[in-house]
């Protein structure tokens, strides 16, 4: 069994397309300008791994990183 996944949104790259929020609303929060941040500490709860990868693969700015803890 592999470790937990952790997501991180690079604030220098995010331009607020908000694709991640549309595809994985549990995993991302938007600020008042619509830029995305990982929700909480970025740990992906079990069962949401596919959504995390879906969000990553639809970010036009390649701003989302996923690492394994």
């Amino acid at each position, binding site marked *: 069994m592999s470790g937990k996944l952790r997501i991180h949104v690079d604030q220098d790259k995010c*331009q*607020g397309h908000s694709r991640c929020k549309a595809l994985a609303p549990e995993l991302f929060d938007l600020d*008042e*300008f619509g830029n995305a941040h990982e929700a909480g500490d970025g740990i992906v709860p079990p069962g949401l791994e596919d959504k995390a990868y879906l969000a990553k693969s639809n*970010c*036009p*700015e*390649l701003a989302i990183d996923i690492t394994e803890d």
Partner: protein
Amino acid sequence: MNKPAPVTDWVHDFDHTDPRWTENPFPIWDELRAECPVVHTERFLGVYMPTTYEAVKQIAYDTEHFSSRRVIVRTVRPEITQSAPPITSDPPEHKPAKQLLLPPFTPDAMKKLEPRVREICNELIDEFINDSKVDAAARYTKHIPVRAIAHMLGIPEKDSELFIKWIHEILELGITDDDALVRGVNEMSHYFAGHIEQRKKNPTDDLISTLMNARDKNGQPLSDMHVLGSLRLLLIAGIDTTWSAIGASLWHLAKTPADRERLLAEPALIPTAVEEFLRAYSPVTMAREVMKETTISGCPIKPGNMVLLSFPAANRDPAMFPDADKVIIDRKENRHAAFGLGIHRCVGSNLARMEMTIALEEWLKRIPDFRLDPAGEVTWSEGTVRGPRQLPLLLGKQH
């Protein structure tokens, strides 16, 4: 105005206003991409066009060599007198101007607007639901964005014919006719100046007042010129772009019964299909002006030229999208650039996505069966924003 000579060599002499490009640009882009990642034409006083996703992305990210002070490729390049921040801004002025506009266009803000957009769609459908045929571009897709943005700005929805006229003058006629462009811009500025004056006496809670109440980083209100420029931008950018995107989506569904049936059976798939329509039929091509010599994808780029920043061509690049020429309405991985890449990401992208989704949902609910009218002709707009301007459809089951 003399008609330009027809193109015989797309690779060295392209013209994005040629009727063949307007009608069906995809094979032309494939030809250009096969030849070079950046092509050049002497037309329009000298223009480069990146043809690959990679080259488009490099230019979009490079605000040092490429300026946004001119964002439309035209036959003339007059002195710049009017700006429309933030779309015509470069760093460092860009970010503060953009940040003023972002909060009213977040996904949450769009959710509040959604019920009005649903009503607009149904009001429009009511007008032709009992007919056997309709020009969906003239009677449906054209009116949704213009009414929605009017609603947000707090200006009368009934003035929409006027807005559409100005936009035609600025974005289509203006490519070759400077008088038309100046006329459109001046009439629009005069119109908004009146609304600004009204709000100085009677403040409202719409987007015009939001801009008027905004403060820059020094705590100062924006100049009337800045407010006017941003209002012109919102109106211009918010209308025929989404008109085109909704129209192209309906055009696709009218000629692709399998996709239509699938969305009828699985309406939850509509937002995913919207992303694919945005990729495959991206309406908006932007432009940049070359400020300093550089190299893009191995190609030398020289100042004095404009760049046709074709997000639509980038979105058809097979190196980025498998089966780039196929419309796959459940495409999983879709990093399309329909709303641009980098700091100039379209401020209205959440609005456009919401309008497209609602427009398709409401149409499919009430008009599940429709197809292209073989007796009619689909026509496409020319230039910067591409979409159907005539979309004759037959409504109801085929007999």
